[in-house]
């Protein structure tokens, strides 16, 4: 197989710019996503069904439809009414944050519910309020259990951000598509993109292993 390194080198500067954008989009989206997710997760654990229901539907919608479709809906349906026109960067942050919020919510819920009920009962019998029990007893233990799941969600998010090339957000996949277009070649752009994503997710998983060990 002939592999033309010269066109990879030609595109390296923009690919690196795209990589920075991918990292930026992923970090912001996982942060917003987990803040929203915390609220949605608690909402889903509400005791009354009519409080639970909207959060339940939110999670079901975002986990049950392809991100591909969500990106198009956000880009052409959600952003224009607020912003007046489409904007690929806003689409990137909004679509990925909303999507990641649904998964984060389930991570929070699973983490919290994995802590034995007895812990809460013990905390309350010591004279803590329900909120105090959650904050000082349950959450610290739950968060430790959530770290691997969050790491996984982050890695998935980094790779999923490649779908944003669909609406021309200039991330890694966008530039490798451009490379493909100019030379009508497949291996150079796609293998290069795959290598960049691999380096990103591999270093991320190393970092997460370290964090897990330190906790």
């Amino acid at each position, binding site marked *: 197989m002939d592999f033309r390194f010269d066109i990879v080198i030609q595109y390296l500067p923009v690919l690196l710019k795209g990589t920075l954008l991918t990292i930026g989009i992923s970090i912001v989206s996982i942060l917003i996503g987990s803040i929203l997710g915390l609220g949605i997760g608690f909402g889903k654990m509400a005791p009354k069904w009519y409080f639970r229901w909207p959060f339940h539907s939110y999670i079901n919608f975002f986990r049950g439809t392809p991100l591909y479709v969500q990106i198009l809906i956000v880009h052409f349906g959600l952003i224009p009414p607020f912003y007046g026109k489409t904007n*690929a960067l806003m689409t990137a942050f909004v679509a990925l944050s909303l999507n990641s919020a649904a998964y984060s919510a389930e991570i929070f819920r699973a983490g919290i519910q994995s802590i034995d009920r007895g812990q809460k009962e013990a905390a309350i019998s010591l004279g803590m309020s329900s909120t105090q029990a959650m904050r000082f007893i349950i959450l610290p233990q739950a968060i430790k259990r959530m770290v691997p799941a969050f790491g996984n969600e982050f890695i998935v998010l980094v790779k999923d951000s490649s779908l944003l090339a*669909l609406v021309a957000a200039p991330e890694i996949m*966008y530039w490798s598509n*451009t490379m*493909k*277009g*100019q030379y*009508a070649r497949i291996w150079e752009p796609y293998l290069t993109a795959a290598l960049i994503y691999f380096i990103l997710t591999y270093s991320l998983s190393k970092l997460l292993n370290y964090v897990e060990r330190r906790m």
Partner: protein
Amino acid sequence: MKAEKKWIMSAFMSLMMVAIVGCGSNNNAGSENAAVEKIKFATDASYAPMEFMDTDKIKGFDIDFIKVVMEEAGIDYDVTNTGWDTMLTSVKQGTEYQAGLSSVSITDERKETYDYSIPYFESTNMILVKEDSDIQNALDLKDKIVAIQGATTADDLMSGIMGVDNGNLRRFDSNAVALMELDAGGADAVVADIAIVREYVKNNPDKKFKTITDMENFGSEYYGILYPKGSEWKAKLDPAIKAVLENGKYAEIYKTWFGEEPNLENVLNAK
């Protein structure tokens, strides 16, 4: 027990190896035989009116054109909708599909990797803007936001005018999304093949759009059939394409799709 497992594993692995190698050589032999009696075209049928899916059938100008060419050549053929990327890779390999038929413009950069038939279609890129736009020609697009389908000649042209890494040049997955972007206000203009733009305007008469042709900056481009380097099919099909262009069958098809006479002289004299 353990040793036995190992033995089974290695037997299984060598079987797999044989199967993989065997498949490889079988494929090659198969395609050589197939190449004698039948040519398989790959296409990206998402480019109305040139080639598109009408539910589960591929239709379009290119499809009607290749039909008369293959009748002329007396060779059996079929056309499969593979999508653009698969078409490019598999035609380059030349084993499963021996040619690509998908409004592929002949460009020098692509010639580094592929062979082309003689030109069979003259096209140009066209600018689509909203009716109240002050854009007059391609150079006015320099500091505007322009939506295009990536990997097309519109991409090459606008990359040349605006710079390949210009953030205002937005490359979309398909012309359909690029046109939606213009409609939703995310772009000031779309640049695409003339046939695509005309089809879109025809299908959206209530939207206030205006089209601009700029032969000075965009010029003519020509579509060719895509072959792998050194393909024997070029020599077999080029005479048939030439005959169809000259005997009036081409003009007939052209009229049914575009409602006007083709400029045959340009196509025949194009390099």
